[in-house]
């Protein structure tokens, strides 16, 4: 039954907008419309607007990237002075929990963001690399402060810039960077992850053309273990 409530010559179904949008929702869900007037649902531009407002369409990649970027689990990796400012972003003034990153995981297996905060000495570099290797993909690294981004204030025999032994996504300058600056760096990383989910794992490790090798376990059941083979030298041992 159609009627013309505004007298403009446009005829709409007799049921209220609410009833008609509920019927449309039912239709979209693939069910049949019950009720006195089964053909009473939204049409045309109304229907399109209803769909826009109530259903979000996206690609799976984008959805996954959105979820990943809003829930970084940073690894507790405070080395030196920058660690104190990293603790400051957890504190109340610059609150990293607003963005969802307050769950600092102690174990690298559960973390996906390594905030290298502080100077990396030559004794510590293999250990940092080992921790980074223990993290599961996808993983990101932020080099916080001048000392790990470049050599910082101390350009001497004892330090290693982090770029030399691990891939870094965001460098945050400062000595130490203000908590707001580190927050800016983390948000930049978040934006990066939201927009470009294909991080190019093989490209980052310069491992194109390598294959995954299953180690032969003599005797015992050989569980296929995917070993990350890096084309560069294998850094192991502390």
């Amino acid at each position, binding site marked *: 039954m159609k009627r013309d409530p505004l007298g403009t010559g446009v005829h709409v179904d007799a049921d209220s907008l609410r009833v008609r949008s509920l019927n449309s929702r039912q239709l979209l869900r693939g069910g049949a419309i019950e009720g006195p007037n089964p053909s009473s649902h939204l049409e045309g531009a109304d229907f399109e607007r209803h769909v826009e407002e109530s259903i979000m369409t996206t690609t799976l990649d984008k959805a996954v990237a959105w979820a990943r970027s809003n829930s970084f689990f940073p690894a507790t990796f405070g080395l030196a002075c920058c660690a104190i400012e990293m603790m400051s972003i957890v504190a109340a003034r610059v609150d990293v929990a607003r963005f969802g990153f307050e769950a600092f995981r102690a174990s690298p297996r559960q973390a996906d963001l390594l905030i290298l905060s502080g100077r990396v000495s*030559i*004794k510590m570099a293999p250990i940092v690399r080992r921790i980074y290797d223990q993290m599961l993909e996808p993983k990101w690294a932020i080099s916080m402060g001048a000392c790990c981004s*470049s*050599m910082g204030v*101390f*350009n*001497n*025999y*004892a*330090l290693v*810039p982090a*770029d*030399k*032994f*691990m*891939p870094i996504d965001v460098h945050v300058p400062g000595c130490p960077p203000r908590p707001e600056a580190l927050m800016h760096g983390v948000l930049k990383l978040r934006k990066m992850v939201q927009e470009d989910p294909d991080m190019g794992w093989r490209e980052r490790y*310069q491992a194109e053309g390598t294959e995954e090798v299953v180690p032969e376990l003599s005797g015992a059941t050989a569980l296929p273990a995917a070993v990350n083979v890096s084309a*560069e030298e294998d850094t192991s041992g502390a």
Partner: protein
Amino acid sequence: MPDATGLELIAQELREAHGEDVVAETTFFRNQATLTVEPGSIRAVLAHLREQGYAFMSSVHGVDYYPHEPRLGVIYELLDMSRVDRIAVKLRVDSGDPVVASVTEEWPTANHQEREVYDMFGVVFEGHPDLRRILMPEDYEGHPQRRDFPIGGEPVIFTFNEGDSTGSSE
């Protein structure tokens, strides 16, 4: 601070007790007293000073006097808490044979500090319970804080040396 005369008295006592050439030199500079002693007698000197009241060892550190010989110096800072008196005992050894008796047994605080002097300067402390590198990796070669050890570091990249490879992964 023992004043200048007090320092001379201490030096005199040491010479009487342990021989003429124990104390090589006394320095009273900016109100601070320093005794330069012969390396072999360091334990005896420290024991003597401990009896005099200097029972707290503040610091053991090394100095490289390059190019003056004998090149490597070890300085022991002692403190008398009851009279608030400080005295420093200095000894110098050649870089060719830098062996000094360790004082860790009587002064346990010297344990890590002597290891640091060994690590940074190469002075070998005989009798130390566990002499190995403390700040540098165990297999590091060289003694970094010697004056002729290069300071190291990365070159700063300007436009003129931009293309040079620095070995980074980027």
